[in-house]
């Protein structure tokens, strides 16, 4: 099952996909034109991985890490499908990151990697934008790069774990204005989903609704104001986002 959270005529609904259509929790079928998409979950603690695909690490002139490079994200940064993300005018390099989001389904502490999938509720897509101009070599990547308002689109769907046969073998692709700029496979993660759950639950408790954004492969390019960015994962969906500039704001 693919599930979403949407706004329809001023109210928030749970929704699901049925044969390509959107069905609200009250049974009403609605057109995509009549809804706005919210992030499909309201995540608890959100972990994101840096340099978790070796080809992307090479692209940034880093060696793949020996231990997962984990940082956390706050609730201000999440936004839904077909949202807009602001590129401040002083930024010279802002890139998308197409990532598989793994949503925790039950409380996890000291979980072995062989049992890790028992703790997964499902999957979504995260576009974990980075604003590289603001990188500092302290707690890198620092929050000014990675936790800006509305700069982490999620969705459109949350897909039940049982619907994804092998989450470690999914194609990821990003299109900018229709042209494919990033392609990879989750099989190339440095630390796979079971390892990440083992690692994190090895030192802290993971709770239902927590989410792990598992990193991005090679192919991150600068995106400009007006660009349409589509991050796509096989079997999960296509997440659309538009880059906007300072002009969209009235100060």
């Amino acid at each position: 099952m693919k599930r979403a959270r949407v706004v329809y005529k001023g109210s928030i609904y749970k929704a699901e996909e049925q044969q390509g259509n959107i069905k609200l929790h009250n049974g009403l079928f609605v057109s995509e034109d009549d809804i706005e998409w919210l992030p499909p979950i309201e995540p608890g603690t959100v972990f994101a991985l840096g340099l978790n695909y070796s080809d992307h690490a090479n692209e940034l002139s880093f060696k793949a890490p020996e231990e997962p490079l984990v940082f956390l994200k706050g609730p201000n940064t999440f936004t839904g499908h077909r949202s807009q993300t602001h590129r401040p005018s002083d930024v010279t390099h802002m890139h998308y990151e197409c990532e598989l989001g793994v949503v925790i389904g039950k409380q996890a502490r000291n979980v072995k990697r062989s049992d890790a999938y028992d703790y997964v509720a499902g999957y979504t897509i995260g576009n974990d934008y980075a604003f590289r101009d603001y990188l500092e070599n302290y707690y890198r990547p620092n929050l000014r790069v990675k936790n800006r308002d509305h700069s982490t689109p999620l969705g459109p769907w949350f897909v039940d774990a049982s619907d994804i046969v092998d989450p470690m073998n999914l194609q990821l692709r990003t299109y900018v204005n229709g042209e494919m700029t990033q392609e990879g496979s989750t099989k190339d993660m440095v630390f796979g989903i079971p390892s990440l759950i083992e690692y994190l639950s090895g030192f802290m408790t993971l709770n239902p609704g927590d989410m792990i954004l598992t990193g991005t492969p090679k192919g991150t390019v600068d995106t400009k104001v007006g660009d349409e960015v589509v991050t796509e994962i096989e079997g999960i969906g296509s997440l659309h986002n538009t880059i906007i500039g300072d002009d969209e704001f009235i100060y």
Partner: protein
Amino acid sequence: MSQVKLHLSGQKKPTEATLQSNNKIEVNGATYSQNDLQLDAPIDGTIYGVILNYKGALEELGSQMYEAPHKQPPQAPILYIKPANTMNAPNRAVPMPSGETQLEVGASIGIVIGKTACKVTESDAMEYVQGYTIANDISIPHESVYRPAVKYKARDGFCPIGPWVVEKESIKNPDDFKLQVYVNDELRQENSTMNLVRSIPKLIQDITEFMTLNEGDLLLTGVPENAPLVKAGDHVKISVKGIGVLENIIKHESDWMLGGVSNETSSSRI
């Protein structure tokens, strides 16, 4: 007398109370000692912390700031998140993880955000503050501040908060909160928010320039240099004049679920 909001254990909503000058708490006409009350953490929003925000802490890094991997001093506030699993309460135990022998105390003034704060200027910043509390931002000691310190700072129970939120109107000068840290009743650390690199209003301005803080979020203003190290069995008390006292005990991970400082123990220490 100060107006405070405290969170009685088991209650869904905060309780408004008066903190008297003799440190007694008055609720609905009745008076209590702090340790008569079982308290939860007084906030439930997102907890953000900032590193290197005491001049002394920055000076400790010294010339390293100009060398690899840092290359230059921090420009904007360097934040981190203490996730929900770290939240802990006054008088509860803090777990010493298996395999560790020492924890670093992180005495910090917490600013409780009172309303949505986005692109706030320094001169308006205090309008967005609801009040102040104390946090003990516990870490496993670690040298490097190059990579995020999730494994060292995000352990279960690593952020006791409390004992309550003092309304900002009751605080004359937030630029001079005096922090004192006692370990087993011995004074081990003293500092003041006078020594912050970024004052409270400046911090709010420089953070909300790039991200929104929401009502109920807690912004920790930084941990001073020379943070005491503690071991299992130690009793840690952070005292801030004008706010109160946050006490916790360190227990081995295997025991910490069982609780913390009993009322008898802690009363005898005050």
